[in-house]
């Protein structure tokens, strides 16, 4: 039991399930997006209608786990934490030494908060513009052109956010363990999320 004594519960099973589903759907969306967008890949893979169908339905499904997570109280509590920016968050963002632990960080740091909402907002924009491009009778041509423009740039931005997210995860095995098992080591929580560790210690 020594391990659980030295660890904190970080993510509830419902949150980990949402993360897994969103990750899977996001991955499918991004891979099919690359095929649909890039001419060389498209010509090698072909089968545009199949790839397009997979892309569209994964995209439509993507917000479902994000929203369904709200059935879990733990998910709702974490969404609330992510939503709120304290003065310490602003200081953390401006600080050059933000990683040294001087500014006590809550359960999520300001970067994680911003990333979460950029991903959520971009998903919404991609959903709306994607629908306009797919159901071509919805709006007039110049708006479809605008939707294609917006969809392209937001997809590029979201792809970069996801790559950044994965790079941070690769560099931090304990953060990955948190999402895999739901628990993180106490010493990691103290170093990375000091204010949250204090909260957990009571």
């Amino acid at each position, binding site marked *: 039991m020594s391990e659980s004594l030295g660890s904190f519960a970080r993510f509830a099973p419902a949150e980990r399930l949402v993360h897994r589903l969103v990750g899977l759907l996001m991955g499918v969306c991004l891979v099919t997006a690359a095929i649909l967008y890039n*001419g060389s890949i498209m010509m090698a893979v072909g089968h545009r209608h199949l790839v397009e169908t997979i892309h569209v339905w994964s995209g439509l499904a993507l917000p479902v786990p994000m929203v369904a997570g709200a059935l879990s109280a733990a998910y709702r509590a974490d969404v609330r934490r992510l939503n*709120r920016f304290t*003065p310490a*968050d602003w200081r953390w963002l401006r600080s050059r030494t933000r990683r040294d632990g001087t500014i006590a960080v809550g359960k999520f740091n300001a970067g994680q908060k911003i990333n979460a*909402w950029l991903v959520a907002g971009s998903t919404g924009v991609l959903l709306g513009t994607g629908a306009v491009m797919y159901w071509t009778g919805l709006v007039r041509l*110049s708006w479809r052109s605008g939707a294609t423009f917006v969809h392209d740039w937001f997809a590029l931005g979201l792809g970069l956010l996801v790559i950044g997210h994965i790079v941070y995860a690769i560099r931090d095995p304990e953060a990955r363990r948190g999402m895999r098992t739901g628990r993180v080591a106490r010493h990691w929580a103290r170093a990375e999320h000091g204010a949250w560790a204090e909260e957990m210690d009571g």
Partner: protein
Amino acid sequence: MGADPDGAPVGRRVVLGLLGLGALGVVTGSRIQGGLSELLAPVQLRDPTGFTSLVPLGNTWRYYSVTGSVAPRDATSYALKVSGLVDRPATYRLADLEAMPQLSFTDDFHCVTGWHVPDVPWTGVRLAGLLDAAAPTAEAVGVRFHSFDGTYSVNMTLDQARADDVIIALRMYGDPVTHNHGGPVRIYSGSMYGYKSTKWLSEIEVTPNNDPGYWEDRGYPLDGFIGE
């Protein structure tokens, strides 16, 4: 901001801001893209690195294929059949098509999903001429274009196919139509969306009907006129 002990609801503001930005982009994006395109076109036409094709800067081409990889055809292997409800079926080699009177004009390429490439120089043989030579019978109503990708086909009515801006395109930008653009021979129809401009053209079949084609079976309008 400091009044709320839990902090400001920045997450909600970020989402609403992005949604607003997205909506603004949908309405104005066409003009922004046009401006970017004019600025960047000289760079993109001469970009040796290919970088500009990776990012959505300006109005760039997107290459579509509905099957697996398509085996390229050249002057020796290429043939175009004119068949169906005609008095004089014919088969043309690439050299036969090149020897015919050529029509050149500059016109935009529009995809129904919204992307477009402005001011593309096209050269080819007017389809109306080939149809006249084949002499459609009294029962003829439509034209079916078949692709040598083995899957794609699409229709036009006989009247639509005879329009001035419907050509059997042999050249784009002054050079032979490349394989990725549907060469050596493709259809180009200036007034219609791209899905009417069959790539890798192998057969023009005159038909007693105007049945939906590949993308029309998947939801696109039967009359693919731009702006409708």
